[in-house]
């Protein structure tokens, strides 16, 4: 009898009635999958927030990793998948920027600000702004340095924009990729308490570049000392954000590897700043009066020949 019943076409009741009859049945809804995990995520975050952000992040990081994976459940070829990376409001972006410029010692940028909602808006547009700021500031600075010279003809140096764009976007996206791969590899060898997803690393790098924007504008001032002081200052600010983020992630590893990792992060960051300063901004040189030199040569030649 049962077999014949199964072969017959069966009318299914309304979903509500079926659920009322069997409340524990699994249901699949064709709504936005983002809504439900978000509520769970915010409920589970509550007990985690009172703890120290960087230490004892065991449960917090595990759950947030899982839930971060749950949030992006749309397949990657749909538009909605990418929309989850832009789920930020204006005040959130401003908060994150503020957190990168004024790093609180001891607080982890990712835990404090990103909290499993990494966005791509900040990294992308901060990099775009930085590209154009460096190109425009470099051009302006060169203009002011060479202003009085009679042989100087102003050129907009537009090629430098594409070079700046390549450099900064490569730094902001490839270095996080390499760092993420490295951290994943170390994670498989040494059980780390804290681990970051690729997008969170991109987020940290992107927001840490923000402090270079006002620095690049101030680099227009054609004084070497001022420029180097600015560079060191901004390097300290953004470097500290990076160090405080990544130190908990490598702390449990071999001492040397941890130090080498953090050292490499800082070194690359410094290289970017120094490289930009050297390439886009001409050195404010002092003009030597040209006619004196041939006269000296003339006199030395004459005296030597005697």
């Amino acid at each position, binding site marked *: 009898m049962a077999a014949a019943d199964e072969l017959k076409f069966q009318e299914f009741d309304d979903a509500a009635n079926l659920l009322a009859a069997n409340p524990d049945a699994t249901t*699949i809804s064709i709504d936005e999958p983002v809504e439900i995990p978000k509520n769970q995520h915010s409920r589970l975050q509550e007990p985690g927030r009172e703890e120290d952000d960087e230490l004892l992040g065991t449960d917090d990081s595990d759950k947030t990793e899982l839930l971060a994976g749950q949030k992006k459940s749309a397949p990657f070829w749909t538009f909605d998948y990418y929309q989850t990376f*832009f789920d930020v409001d*204006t005040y959130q*972006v401003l908060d994150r920027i503020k957190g990168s410029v004024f790093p609180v010692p001891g607080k982890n940028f990712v835990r404090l600000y990103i909290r499993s909602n990494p966005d791509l*808006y900040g990294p992308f547009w901060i990099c*775009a*702004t930085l590209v*154009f700021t460096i190109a425009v500031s470099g051009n302006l600075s060169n203009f002011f340095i060479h202003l009085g010279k009679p042989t100087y003809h102003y*050129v*907009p140096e537009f090629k430098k924009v594409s070079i700046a764009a390549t450099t900064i976007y490569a730094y902001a996206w490839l270095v996080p990729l390499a760092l993420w791969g490295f951290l994943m590899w170390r994670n498989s060898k040494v059980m780390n308490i804290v681990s970051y997803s690729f997008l969170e690393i991109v987020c940290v790098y992107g927001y840490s570049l923000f402090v270079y924007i006002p620095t690049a504008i101030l680099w227009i001032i054609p004084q070497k000392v001022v420029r180097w002081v600015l560079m060191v200052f901004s390097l300290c600010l953004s470097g500290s954000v990076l160090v405080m983020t990544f130190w908990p992630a490598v702390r449990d590893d071999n001492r040397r590897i941890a130090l080498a990792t953090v050292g490499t992060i800082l070194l690359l960051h410094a290289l970017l700043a120094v490289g930009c300063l050297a390439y886009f901004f001409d050195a404010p040189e002092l003009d030597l009066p040209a006619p004196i030199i041939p006269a000296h040569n003339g006199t030395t030649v004459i005296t030597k020949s005697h």
Partner: protein
Amino acid sequence: FPGLADVSLPQDIPVEGEITVPVGSHSPDEDYSTLDEPVKDTIMRDLKAVGKKFVHVMYPRKSSALLRDWDLWGPLVLCVSLALMLQGGSADSKDDGGPQFAEVFVIIWFGAVVITLNSKLLGGTISFFQSLCVLGYCVLPLTVAMLVCRLVLLAGAGTISFIIRFLVVLAMFGWSTLASTAFLADSQPPNRKALVVYPIFLFYFVISWMILTFTPQ
């Protein structure tokens, strides 16, 4: 129904042609009869539509003509004319330093696409081509500024001309940004307006910079 969950159509499917609100005046017969009308009528109709949109950009009000009947002819004409005017005019443009024609083109179109994608990803309700249309048409004040700059540069390249050019470009930059913001900001969720307006500001700033730093050989 797991299969159906994947069938989430994007908010808009990029289509060619007009997105017109079905009003009674558009009877089906009119669409077929464009084959019979003289070519001058067809061209004049499109030209009038483009011209009307130019007027809407110069006097930005809350009209939806720009948004409803989008077309990309105006942006193309503006972009090409701007890129042409930004050429140094010298045959040997190797050390010109200014943007090449292709660079201007790419910046304008790629920039407009990126801004449109950005506003859609942030949850905007405007369609892809409508946004491209608005951003392209709002380049009109900057094209006018480029024209004025070239005329001023014909008269001389001193400090006075630079001040005049700077003020003109600044005014037109403000006009462009305000015009496009007036059209685009309404379609955004209210707590993300600034996130959408900033890239537009950056976009027109870059174009203004290219115009201001134009130096003829």
